[in-house]
Each structure stands twice: as C-alpha cells, then as structure tokens.
C-alpha cells in the first residue's frame, strides 16, 4: 500500500546518500592496496643455514654491541638514551627479542643493507648514510656469517613475548603511547630532526586508522604513505598481530563490553517496537 511505497522511497534515497558518502567516497580517497606480505618477497631468501654457536662469536666480532644492547645475555647498550638519541637521532633497539619478533630473511637482509630492508632508501644514500652501518663481513662467506648471527639471535630470543613488551621492543624507540603510560625513549627533539617530523603518539591510532589500514601499513609503510620516514620494521605476522592487539587494548579498551551490551539493548528495542506495534494496532482498530 502507499505507506510502504513511501517507506521504500525514503530508504532508497537514504541508502544512496549513505553509500555515496561512506563506502564509495572512502574507496576513492583510499584506493585498495595489496594485502600485507609477511614473506617480504622483495628481499632475497637466505641460502645458508646458520650456526648459533658460530653466530655468538660473529655477533661479538661484528661490533653490534657497539650500538645495540642484548639485555637477556647481560650485554647492556653502551649508550644511555639521551646520548644515543643525540648520536643517532633514535635509540638503537635492544636485540633480546629480535630473533622472535622479526622475520628471519628480513633480519638477514637488514644486517647486510639496513636502508634497503627498512625501505628508507628514499631518505638515505652515500651522502646521508643510515645511522646503522652495513655489515661488510668478517672476511669469510658474508652470507654464512649473517646466517650465523641471525641463528644466534633466534637462539637467545624468548619463546613467547607479552604484547606490551613486544610493543616496547618494536615501536617505543620512536612512538609514545600516552594512554598506556609508555613514552618514547628517544629524545623528542633529536628524533624529530632525524625523522623530519615527530612520530605520532599511538594511543588512538587503532581508531583513527583502523585495523585494516594498520595491517598493511605496519608491514610496509610505503604502501599506504609513500615517502614516509617510518621504516618497515619486519615484524612477523604473529608479532604484528600482537602489536595491533595491544593497540586495540589501549585505544579501544571497551570494545568487548560494547560488543556484549549491543545485543541486549537492540533486543530490548525490538521487543519495545513489537509491543508498540501491538498497542498501536489495538488503538487504531477503533478509528479505521
């Protein structure tokens, strides 16, 4: 009958507006990107099998601890945070968990050519080198030596890591997360100069960017934000999931409560509507 036609017209035009303004417009503003590549296909695959014991020696000889700490093995960083920030622009990360949270091939590629693996070659070149120097080898087969070092890092890494600790190891050197009481350990001024702009606080990033965006962004920042100074840090799929989960717990702590309460309130309104309809019919029966 006519009222249903009217309802149909209203719903139709409302949907046209909604679809145009939301899904359609947003697809225009944020074109679809390829999904995250946790295999890091653009980087070479390791050909050698690493020996952790040899790797322990190579690790020391390579001079990694000249900048990096390896807390779990009792090796602290030679710099305090302030000095490290002043020297490098950012505090070099502690490597205790690196064997667990970063992809193996990525680690190998990183050691051999940091700027390339991190995807920041648009910023660093011979005239402006990346603060982490390339590994030129210890005289032997460089690929074997790198494989050994990576194997060593994997051997000293924990089996599991808490979300918060992972976040601190992978992200805290640049990013703060006020709502989790985490402050970046690099000096803000030095960091801003090094990066070109201040890395944003991540407290609400899960809501301002959304899970889908973050999944592709963290895996390769250049995909979503071409030219950004943020490096690709090489997290494994599991590690990235933990980071995003941590961001959700900080920026959208009440999601579970919200999802649980929804059906109850909507259910209440449905019953309300049914009762309202029954009463309306009763009342209008007298006047039709």
């Amino acid at each position: 009958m006519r009222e249903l036609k009217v309802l149909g017209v209203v719903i139709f035009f409302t949907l046209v507006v909604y679809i145009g303004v939301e899904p359609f417009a947003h697809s225009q503003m944020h074109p679809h990107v390829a999904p995250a590549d946790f295999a890091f296909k653009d980087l070479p695959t390791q050909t050698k099998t690493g020996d952790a014991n040899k790797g322990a020696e190579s690790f020391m000889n390579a001079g990694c601890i000249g900048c990096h700490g390896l807390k779990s093995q009792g090796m602290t960083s030679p710099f305090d945070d302030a000095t490290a920030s002043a020297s490098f622009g950012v505090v070099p990360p502690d490597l205790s968990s690196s064997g667990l949270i970063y992809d193996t091939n990525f680690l190998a590629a990183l050691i051999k050519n940091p700027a390339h693996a991190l995807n920041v070659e648009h910023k660093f070149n011979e005239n402006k080198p990346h603060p982490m120097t390339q590994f030129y080898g210890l005289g032997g087969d460089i690929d074997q030596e790198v494989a050994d070092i990576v194997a060593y890092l994997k051997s000293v890494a924990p089996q599991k890591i808490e979300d918060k600790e992972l976040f601190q190891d992978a992200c805290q050197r640049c990013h703060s997360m006020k709502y989790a009481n985490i402050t970046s350990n690099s000096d803000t001024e030095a960091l801003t100069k090094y990066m070109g702009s201040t890395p944003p606080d991540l407290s609400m990033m899960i809501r301002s960017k959304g899970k889908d965006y973050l999944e592709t962004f963290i895996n390769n920042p250049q995909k979503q934000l071409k030219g950004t100074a943020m490096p690709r840090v090489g997290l494994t799929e599991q590690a990235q999931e933990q980071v995003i989960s941590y961001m959700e717990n900080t920026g959208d702590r009440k999601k579970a409560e919200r999802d649980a309460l929804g059906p109850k309130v909507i259910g209440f309104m449905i019953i309300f509507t049914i009762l309202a309809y029954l009463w309306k019919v009763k009342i209008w029966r007298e006047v039709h």
Partner: protein
Amino acid sequence: MAEITKANGIGDWFDQRLATKKLAKVMMTEYWIPKDINFLWAMGVVLVVLFKILIISGIFLLMYYKPDVNLAFDSVNYTIMQEVEYGWLWRHMHGVAASLIFLVIYIHMFTGIYYGSYKKGREMIWLTGMALFGMFSAEAFSGYMLPWGQMSYWAAQVITNLFGGIPVIGDALVIWIRGDFTVADPTLTRFFMLHVLLLPLVIILLIAVHFYSLRIPHVNNQEGENIDFDVESEKYLAGNKKESKVVPFWPVFLSKDFFVVGIALTLFFYLTFYHFNFAMDPINFEPANAMKTPAHIYPEWYFLWSYEVLRGFFFPVGPIAAMDIGLAAFGFANVIFMIFPFLDRDPIVKPAHQRPRFKIWFWILLVDMIVLTVYGKLPPIGVNTWIGFVAAMTFILLFVALPFITKKDAGGAK
C-alpha cells in the same frame, strides 16, 4: 480568586490549581490530528526523542569533558571513552544521535515541502522549523569542535575563515569570532559555551514556538484537504470514530508515533554499537595539529551539499574571485530555504504528485541535493569539480525557477 473546594482525589487537587484537566484536553486528548497521514508524520516525535537523547547523553559527557586545548582530546578519548563506566556509550550515543537527527530533519523538511505544509497559515511552522535547522547546524558545528581532533580543529579553521569574505569587516570579524588570530583555546571555550548552554536554550525555545505555531493551522494531511476540525472532532467525541477524519493526539496519534520511534531507536542502537564511523569520523581520533592539515578534509555529511555549493564555483567571473562567487552562492543556498513559502506562488495546499510541474521540480531538487552531498565528500579533482559546478548551478536555478513554475501550476489548475 478561583473557587477552591475540598478536592476529591489528587487529580482534582491539581486541576483546581493548575487546570490540569483542561491542559490535558488541549495538549493531548482533544488535540486533533488528521487521520489521513503516513509514518512521515511521526518524524517530529522522532526528532524530539533524538534531541532528548542528545541532551541526556550530553549531560553525562559534560561531567567529564574538559574545555581546554591541552585537556580536551584526552578527556574525551581516555577519560570518557575508556575510564568512565558507560562513558563510551554516552559518547557513541551522542555522536550517532547527532548524525541521525539531521537525517530525520531532512526527511521532515522534505515531507513539508512535498505536501505543501509551509503555506496557507503554516508559514510560521516553516520559518521556526528552518530557524531550528540553522540552530541545529550551529549546535552540530560547535559540538564537533569539542573533542579537539584533527577534523575539529580544521573544520573550525575553515568555517571561521569563511567570514573573512564579508566585505570591509571580514578580517576583523574572523579574529573576533575566534578570540585569537587562529583557532585556539578562546575559540574552544566560547564554542563550548554555545554548544552546552546558549544554543540548547535557543533550540528549546524555538521548539516550543514551533509546536505552538502548529496549533491554530493544525497538522496537514496527505491530500492537503482543508478539514473542518470542529465538525470532525464533534463526530469523534460523539463516538463516531470511524467516520471522523481526525484522531486525538493522545492516545491515537502518539500510539503510531511510539511504533515509529521504536523502529528508529532499534536502528539507532544498532548504529551506536556496531556501525558508527560515519558519525565519528576516524580522522577526528587524531589529536588536533595546527601544523598539519589532513590529506582529506570534509565536513559531516549533513553539511556536504552546502559545502559543495561553496566549492562548486571554482573559476572567477570577470573581476569577481571564485572564492567570492562560492561564498555568495553558499550564503544564498543557506538562506533561500527560509523564504520557501513566499517563493511558492500557488496558494493551494496539495501534495507534489498533484502538482505537475512542482512534482518534477521536487524530485530534481532531491536528486540535486544528493549529488551535491556525495560530490561534497569526493576529492575536488578532475571531472568531480565540473559535476559539482553543474549541481551547484542547478540548485540556484531551481530556486530562481520556483516562483515561475508554481505560478504556472496554479494557473493550470484554474
């Protein structure tokens, strides 16, 4: 002095002092509404319910919100959203209701246009209604500033900049509105005052006048029939409910309203819990940064058609700058709806489907405003700018044409 006697019951006690029985008849049981209506007639009550939700959720947000540029963002996104028990619920309800109320306002407005409920004694209803639209727009704009996110800041910056286009006093006016050279703390606190006190009071006052202005001309009906309410109400009160062309506001009209409200609130809560990004734009979850404009900037959806008229004129004409043409068009677009009753030269109240030229005019206007809305959101590049221009010109031409086509329709009817 009224004759006060011993009351027989508490109802009678109040009636002797406040005439509550008479009041109930006038406002409720003998306030006559035509029977020939559809669910669109319920939009008014839906608006009242949504406004009530905004006020109540607003009251709870107000308990924890801090109107200071250093504290605002965290007071909303940390304290209210993540610490306060049900704080997230009040915030989601407030944001979704604000967006939904504009959908219902537009439906309500276009219902009035379609059925001719703005003329023949109903001009004041229309004028107060359009004033309410203006006040709600100001309320929405001031409210959006409060979380102090990226959109809050940049929307405020852009919209306050608009006033610079006013000749002679423009630049000084912008600084005066902001209370500072740029959008800053004084701007936030004064818009907080507007949003929380002054505008709600004005809105409540306007709603009261809007309701009052409805009483004497009475509510319209689907055919635009000029009902004799005295005769019809007599029929109803005599027990002839089925023959009468009217029904009382309470309980008959309201019983249908409650059902429509039920459906509206079911949808509302679904959106509140599960689908709210359209109302709480993700960009606003980034703290305001005066040094960085977001890559994509746009107002809330209900302002988009107006925004597109503003940017629809992107080339100068002779000595007049594009910006000034756009501003003039924007001013025109926002004011022209106000004088709608006086642009319609057909004095007879009829639904659009009984007015051949007006019917076409109506659907073109609706489609045009939807095109303006969608293109107001799209980046202004390539063919989008030209479509925006055509849509904006169409809007202006529609209103220029309105007096002529309605006169033609009226002439034809004779």
